[in-house]
């Protein structure tokens, strides 16, 4: 009895430990398979034509520059919406709203995070795009702007929840100190609470941007999917095509192992590296801030 118990304990502990390590394994596996299928692209298409401005796979033009600029402009537009509204909502929830309002708002914001992106894309096609076309008098409503507006909505919940956590973790004594010195609630928010939560808010912004740049279905459905170089501000009002949408739209139709297939994996690799960089920086910002807070408090 004693013996079998300790054996069971041992095996279960090992199993749990292995499960704990699995996350590292998965990240490594994902990176490995992206490299394995994506790196051959560099042998088949030379670097110069990969950085070209023409994406036309049928005639072997694999310039990914328009796709990158497409992703950038849509994400930039999304950030311009998600950052102010996300932080504003986070401030409202954590600093201004009465308790009952907070209990209602938080689940709603979470709900937005759970809305399937394909549903937003669907509404984008049927409601938002026609509205933009008429309202802005454009040839088509399926533009980068439509993508930005919806992506902004998709990024907001991420920004809100992370920024709200950051604001929440600012010690109450900071606020009380400011109030005691005669500052209004508003001054306290701007000059004490927000600066104290700066690193967390920054993380929120980065994670929101990361979420936007990786979003696929919505942008594929509403941005019109034209692989043209988007460098002017006016590109916001014309169709673009993002990296994610290109993979999603074309991977189903390519032959496994073809150049086109390898280039699509190469784009996936670029996306993976972007998200890796964003997340490593975001988490190290939090980590450093935590360390500093510990130093101050000790």
């Amino acid at each position, binding site marked *: 009895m004693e013996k079998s118990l300790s054996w069971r304990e041992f095996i279960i502990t090992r199993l749990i430990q292995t*499960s704990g390590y699995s996350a590292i394994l998965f990240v490594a596996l994902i990176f490995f398979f992206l490299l394995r299928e994506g790196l051959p692209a560099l042998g088949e298409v030379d670097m110069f034509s990969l950085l070209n401005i023409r994406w036309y796979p049928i005639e072997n033009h694999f310039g990914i520059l328009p796709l990158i600029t497409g992703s950038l402009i849509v994400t930039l537009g999304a950030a311009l919406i998600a950052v102010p509204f996300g932080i504003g909502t986070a401030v409202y929830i954590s600093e201004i*709203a009465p308790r009952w309002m907070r209990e209602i708002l938080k689940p709603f914001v979470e*709900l937005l995070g759970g809305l399937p992106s394909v*549903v937003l894309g*669907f509404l984008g096609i049927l409601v938002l795009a026609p509205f933009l076309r008429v309202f802005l008098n454009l040839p088509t409503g399926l533009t980068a702007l439509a993508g930005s507006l919806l992506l902004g909505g998709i990024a907001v919940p991420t920004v809100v929840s992370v920024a709200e956590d950051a604001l929440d973790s600012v010690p109450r004594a900071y606020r009380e100190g400011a109030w005691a010195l005669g500052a209004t609630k508003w001054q306290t928010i701007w000059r004490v609470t927000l600066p104290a939560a700066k690193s967390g808010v920054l993380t929120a912004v980065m994670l929101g941007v990361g979420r936007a740049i*990786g979003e696929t279905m919505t942008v594929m459905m509403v941005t019109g999917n034209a692989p043209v170089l988007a460098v002017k501000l006016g590109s916001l009002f014309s169709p673009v095509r993002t990296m994610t949408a290109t*993979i*999603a739209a074309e991977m189903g139709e390519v032959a496994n192992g073809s150049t086109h297939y390898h280039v699509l994996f190469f784009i996936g690799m670029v996306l993976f590296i972007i998200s890796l960089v964003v997340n490593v920086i975001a988490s190290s910002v939090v980590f450093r801030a935590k360390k500093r807070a510990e130093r101050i408090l000790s």
Partner: protein
Amino acid sequence: MMTKFLSRNRHTVQRLGFIAITLMAIFTVLPIVGTIVFILVKGGSAISWEFLSGFPSEGMRAGGILPAIIGTLYLTLGTAFFSVPLGIAAAIYLAEYAKDNRLTRLIRLAIINLAGIPSVVYGLFGLGLFVLFLQFGTSILAASLTLSIMTLPVIISTSEEALRAVPQAFRTVSISLGATRWQTISRIILKEALPGILTGVILGLERAAGETAPILFTGAAFFLPRLPHSPFDATMALPYHLFVISTQVPEMPIQIQYGTALVLLVFVLTMNVIATVIRSRARARRQW
């Protein structure tokens, strides 16, 4: 000068500022409510027993969406099958066993990264590993595995939080009564943390149920005249079906599109509401 202005009128400034921030919060929440109500209203008239229990016909322009509903159910259950045990075990490791060292920090970094990887990249990975390398083909199995790795970070981080919320005293008492570590975890800690873990699991699965990009090339079928027979069959799924009928099928009746969106939304929202209710009830009942 500015400071003077601000301090003299600081209560006006505060009032204006509060109004602006409140408006922002309203503008954030209103579209969410609007979207849900709009789809409920527009899609409601499409819902009928035939729509929910019939197969698509006439090139999907008529009939029902049963195979898509069943497919999403299968994919969600398949995802749960892999990600729930693994995710909870990983959370137990992080909350109860892991020391604060380099390796643990690496695990945390890996989880954060998993959470940030674009969904379409998961699709590529699933295609490379499960569909082609392990030769599962485009199948429910390959798609479920892909979705479960994507869901893992949500389940791990929420479960870990739930485990950590259980007061240390519970562990001390249990160990001092002679229980082993695992007995303590399985009989005391997991029981106390269950509502929190359940909430995380449901929120993770909710995300999996609504995702399209990861299953695009790993298991989704454009059209299937029958239900899938085995885990190695491809399947229709609600989110992919909505994508297909709203972009790929010309002259698609708008009613069916709204109806499909409604069913998907109800599927996902139900999970969300269940998770929220479990959490708030557990919070209200908690005695520590």
